[in-house]
């Protein structure tokens, strides 16, 4: 428990230090288009992690395998990044990388959700519902 807290604290400290350095070393005349509101991104990350920890801690132990396959499918949300890289008006070699990434994410989405559903169908409370 304490080890986990220390790990989280260290990670947070690391992120903050990095941001401060990033701030300090950023060229003062940087293009406004490249500005990122990174503090709000970090906030989203921290809050989502806490929500994730809270929700996942309550997941039934029976379902840890389906949990892993569904979170796998969920993190294949990388698909939207791949779509942007593949579909935008970028040089061809960059779009090829995007298309491979899109293929990989799409595979995860399709197989992740399908196999999760397949596994969850098998969990039955008692024998009567089960087909002989």
């Amino acid at each position, binding site marked *: 428990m304490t080890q986990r807290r220390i790990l989280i604290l260290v990670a947070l400290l690391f992120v903050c230090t990095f941001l401060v350095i990033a701030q300090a070393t950023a060229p003062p005349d940087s293009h406004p*288009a490249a500005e990122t509101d990174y503090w709000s991104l970090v906030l989203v990350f921290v809050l989502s992690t806490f929500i994730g*920890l809270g929700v996942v801690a309550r997941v039934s132990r029976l379902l840890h395998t389906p*949990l892993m396959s569904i979170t796998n499918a969920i993190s294949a949300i990388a698909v*939207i990044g791949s779509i942007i890289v593949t579909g935008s008006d970028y040089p061809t070699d960059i779009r090829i990388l995007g298309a491979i990434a899109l293929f990989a994410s799409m595979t995860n989405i399709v197989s992740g959700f399908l196999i999760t559903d397949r596994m969850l169908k098998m969990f039955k409370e008692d024998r009567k519902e089960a087909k002989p």
Partner: protein
Amino acid sequence: MIYHLAQIAYIAAAALFVFSLYWMNSPKTARKSVMAGVAAMLLAVVATWIQPEILNHDWIVIAIIAGFVVGIPLSRVPLTAVPQRTALSHAFGGLAAGLVGTAKFYLWSSEGPEQLTAFRMGAIVAEIILGFLTFTGSLMAAGKLQELKWIPQRPVTYPLQNVSNIALLLLAVALGAVLVIDPTGPWAYIAFPAIIGMALVFGVLLIIPIGGADMPTVISILNSYAGLSAVAMGFVLDNKLLITAGALDGSSGLILSIIMCKAMNRSFTNVLFGAFGTVQASKAGDSQKSYKEETIEGAAQVLEQASLVVIIPGYGMAVAQAQHRIRELYDLLTKRGITVKFAIHPVAGRMPGHMNVLLAEADIPYADLVEMDDINSDMPQCDVALVVGANDVVNPAARYDKSTPIYGMPIIDADKARTVYAIKRSKNPGFAGIDNELYFADRTFMLFGDAKGVIGELVKQLSGSGGAH
């Protein structure tokens, strides 16, 4: 307008993802979570696709179709192969993150140095290191789980292994830091591929010293990394939905790894850096204790007389595909009014929850699948404990023998049952290479053979005598 619509869709998708995980808290609501997940994913994909900057659709369509073509067969693998499939999908997740990071780096550096801000460069470095190490690491894990011949199953160790691994990772991080400070220097085009190469190599080196018994933990850690690489992609692309979904995956992997580590009484660092099973492998040979064997007929008679039977499954059950035979045995025993429970150790099998899924596949109601902590108080009342392909999780040496690598690991108290039958393929020690004291205990009798075959014989015996009544 379309921008705002997309943002609303992203918020809805993020909420649906949270609900999706929330509904996994009970098998009764769990199927809703797939619905929620699919709905969220559709929303997110459509909202991204209709953006005005998406001009080329042909490649997107091709890649999506290819994803379906590969994804559908991957979802139909036998359930014993689920650990491999999961590792493989972690690899795909890491690959996607790594490739998008690479694409963004070359894109921005061709557009001009002002695009590669320190923040973006830092996020890209994190993304490619995490992504590519997850890619090769998970491929290695999948290969080990699939028992590919050219990947060593036993942990591989060599001198200075940990030092050189960590040095490699630190070198990659240091190169990344230099890139953050000066992302468009003349050597950046060498440094960037070098970081990718080091991350790829590090992933392989990270998994080489890991043995099969540690796979549940390692898969969970890789799950966490795959999620974190999606988070890093969100930082690169300035996309909050990516960060949210990645963080959910990352925290899920973290929790599972913590549960797995606790179930083995080991720390993260010990799992990752202390190759398991090499210490005792050589020592196991010199013990000259003898097994007591039992015949199928004898075991069947004792089982018939029992009132509480606890079956303790392990990886051996998965290997032998014995779950359906076990269900037949479960049917025959419950028909006689005998209570049959399954004792599930958190690290039994090759991934978290592995045993539950296999037994659910065989139509065993989940009410009879009992967690280790809940079953142990009942073990002294248990008439027969039937160990099917489990080994370390029932080894009483874990309680007191400080010299064994599994010392302190919580175990299922099979040795407290009145009679123990252990089904074992051969007389060799288990995967971790540790002798199991349970097999030599007074009340333990061995049934040697393939788990499926032995249980099949038991079923035949029991149904034969059942017909004579």
